[in-house]
């Protein structure tokens, strides 16, 4: 830019100012971020973290007090959480359901993404929309529908019912993330693999899956987390013998006023945050 302007002797002053501005920008290597964007950004971030900033200190506040700021430091709530069968049992239920549901959602979602990747045109769009519908439907609508149909199929209150319902709401996450991973996938590799003697299944295991593994893993983590903190469907499906952690937390607030919920919330927040960081930690094979 500066060389072009320098060739015209008549625009001396214009060159000086333009040059100075240009240099400042080049030093930062990106356009400078105006101060008000910083302000908005930080405000939004605080807004999101704020509940956590209250609930985590409260979880260390001891058994009797359910208040902020906590009067004393105690691990009582955590002891209670891990010793009371109501809490630890529902955590176990939640984990089992989340693991099975995310596995099922990952298999179905990945298969759907691969299949839809091959299809083109309206049919593909239509099927994609069908699979995504649970994402945009209000949770209560899905929950009622699940409840009504599961009543007939005798799946209410059973682990299978939870797994099926949670897998269904997890599929869209897997579908989206695997589809985007397939965007950069070279279909010629499938032909190359076939010409080298690999069956379609072997090709999937050795070529396709490794190359879309990030997408699959991301989808699986999102499906897992979605199941782990899903409460509306779980409320409908609960039975006296089987309930998940979110349902137990809901009961703790609305019925029992049990301060252990602070510990439970803190554990869920920390666990989910760590889980969502997993895909970031998985590196692609070293390339340079």
């Amino acid at each position, binding site marked *: 830019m500066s060389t072009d302007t320098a060739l015209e002797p008549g625009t001396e002053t214009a060159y000086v100012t333009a040059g100075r501005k240009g240099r400042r920008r080049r030093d930062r290597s990106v356009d400078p971020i105006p101060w008000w964007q910083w302000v908005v950004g930080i405000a939004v971030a605080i807004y999101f973290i704020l509940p956590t900033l209250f609930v985590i200190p409260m979880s260390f506040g001891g058994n009797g007090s359910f208040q902020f700021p906590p009067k004393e430091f105690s691990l009582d709530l955590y002891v209670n959480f891990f010793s009371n069968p109501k809490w630890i049992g529902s955590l176990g239920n939640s984990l089992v359901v989340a693991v099975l549901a995310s596995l099922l959602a990952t298999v179905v979602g990945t298969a759907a993404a691969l299949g839809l990747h091959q299809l083109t045109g309206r049919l593909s769009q239509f099927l994609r929309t069908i699979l995504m519908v649970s994402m945009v439907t209000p949770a209560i609508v899905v929950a009622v529908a699940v409840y009504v149909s599961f009543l007939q199929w005798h799946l209410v209150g059973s682990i299978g019912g939870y797994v099926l319902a949670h897998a269904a709401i997890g599929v869209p996450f897997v579908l989206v993330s695997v589809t985007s991973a397939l965007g950069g996938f*070279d279909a*010629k*590799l499938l*032909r*190359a*693999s*076939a*010409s*080298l*003697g*690999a*069956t*379609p299944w*072997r090709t999937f295991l*050795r*070529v396709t899956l*490794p*190359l879309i593994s990030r997408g699959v893993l991301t989808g699986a983590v999102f499906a897992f987390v979605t199941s782990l903190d899903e409460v509306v469907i779980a409320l409908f499906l609960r039975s006296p013998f089987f309930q998940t952690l979110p349902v137990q937390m809901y009961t703790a607030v609305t019925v029992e006023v049990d301060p252990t919920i602070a510990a439970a919330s803190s554990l869920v927040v920390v666990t989910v945050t760590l889980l969502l960081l997993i895909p970031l930690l998985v590196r*692609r*094979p*070293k*390339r*340079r």
Partner: protein
Amino acid sequence: MTTTTAADAPATATRQGTQIRLEHVTKDYGLATPAVDDISLTIEPGEFMTLLGPSGSGKTTTLNLIAGFESLSAGTIALNGADVGKLPPHKRDLGMLFQNYALFPHMTVAQNVAYPLRERRMPKDVIRAKVQAVLELVQLTGRDDNYPTQLSGGQQQRVALARAIVFDPKALLLDEPLGALDRNLRGALQAEIRRIHREVGSTFVFVTHDQEEAMNLSDRIALFNTGRIEQVGSPEELYRAPETLFTARFLGDSNVFELGTGVTGSSAGWQGATWAVDPGTVSTHPGVLTNAAIVVRPEDLGITTTAAKAPAGSNTVTAVVTDVEYMGSYRTAMLALGPSGVTGRARLDAFDSTLSIGDEVVAHWRPERQRIVAA
């Protein structure tokens, strides 16, 4: 030499390599004309056969049909006499080279090359030995642990070549493998492919739209035109003895005199000139009898100042020089031939600087050097 070929190959395979026989092969996508329209072609064991043609002529579709990536609409494909038309690609045992290399980006060079051997469940030490041997053959030793993205385009294509031949496939199919490389590298890899064909001795089927590449590499060329094979023959046959105007125009430069009528006797007329016809130069294509053209290669066309100076017995036509191009090792005179000024060219000696633009000259050639083709 692999266990699979021994079982499948019938006793007819005496020479090394595999015979590929296409009979009435058709691929119809339901468009106005079939992509591949009733093609019959026999590729002999160990032969380097090039499928040449403009884009959309069906050459790549034909290769994909042989590989099994497309299903036949009609016809049969046989390897050494065994029908493979219904086999999926991974059971055909054919190596394939792609234009964009198609190397597995998450595997090293060694892992890429070992891929077909691992799929065949060979022992580890055999795999290691074969990988080393084939990397040596393509002159890529020492790059085992590199990932494809760390290699240049030419090196990547060598890896792909190594991967496609390491399992001793029945034949190697090459789908414009040099298309993505720059000119110098293309020449080097052409020589490499020719050498490897000699050393491996198996059947190669090469697809390209580059006539120079086809001429340099092939034992035989099958020239494709709108889903059909226009002509099959050695590069020299196609260049010196084309049957049709399409073939003459597609391979090399030519001066074309379209007669508008058939050629039957021992002479032919074009825009007032009458030329002798050597019966040996007349194509056997039936189209010659109804609508023929005379083709003369630039290197067969001589230039003199007057008709009297042309060698006795040669055919002549008046011409105007429109341009002279200096090509280093030769010069090309661009000509406007005959009364209607048909564009033509003659190859001159590099030191011949006597012609200049606007000169009125006489172009001449020997009747046995012309070719009468179907227009």
